[in-house]
């Protein structure tokens, strides 16, 4: 059953990559990449269980924290609308 879960997560990652490549707007791409990050965490956790090495969970935890930093970047995006220098007034 772990292999089924790995296959499903890999399929979902592929679909997210398709959306990130197609996505008409920038927000679609960010959404797809955010989902890709979550799926990476799941993939690492399930692979750790499949290989019988629960220490892989530490890597999954690390990726969750990297995702959290991604959230901070998205929040910055929310405020300024771009990742450039916020000194320049936008509106």
């Amino acid at each position: 059953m772990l292999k089924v879960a790995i296959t499903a997560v890999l399929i979902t990652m592929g679909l997210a990559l398709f959306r990130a490549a197609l996505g008409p707007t920038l927000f679609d791409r960010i959404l797809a990449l955010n989902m890709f990050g979550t799926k990476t965490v799941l993939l690492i956790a399930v692979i750790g269980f499949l290989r019988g090495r629960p220490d892989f969970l530490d890597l999954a935890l690390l990726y969750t924290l990297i995702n959290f930093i991604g959230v901070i970047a998205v929040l910055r995006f929310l405020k300024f609308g771009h990742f450039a220098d916020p000194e320049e007034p936008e509106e």
Partner: protein
Amino acid sequence: MDLAIDLASAAFLLAGSCFAVIGGIGLLRLPDFFSRLHGAGITDTAGAGLILFGLMLQAGLSLATLKLISILGFLYLTSPTSTHALAQSALTHGLKPWLGKREDEPSLR
């Protein structure tokens, strides 16, 4: 008892896999950005939660379960926050929700 736990774990993993793939298809196929948020939300909450809970059942009472719980907690904190921030950002930057009809949609009248 072991068999029951294994079966429950397999059921949770299978349900989580289904939710993940359904959410992925939704992310690819839904017509505009705000509806795609819905597909991404399914994979982030239902898919991740069910898969991680299935793994917790396999791990039993151990440090691995604690790590899985903290992973789940972080995911549940961060992914709705980022989804909300993205929707807010898209709205403030002038992306309108799509309210039209599909061309092949059957008319209700």
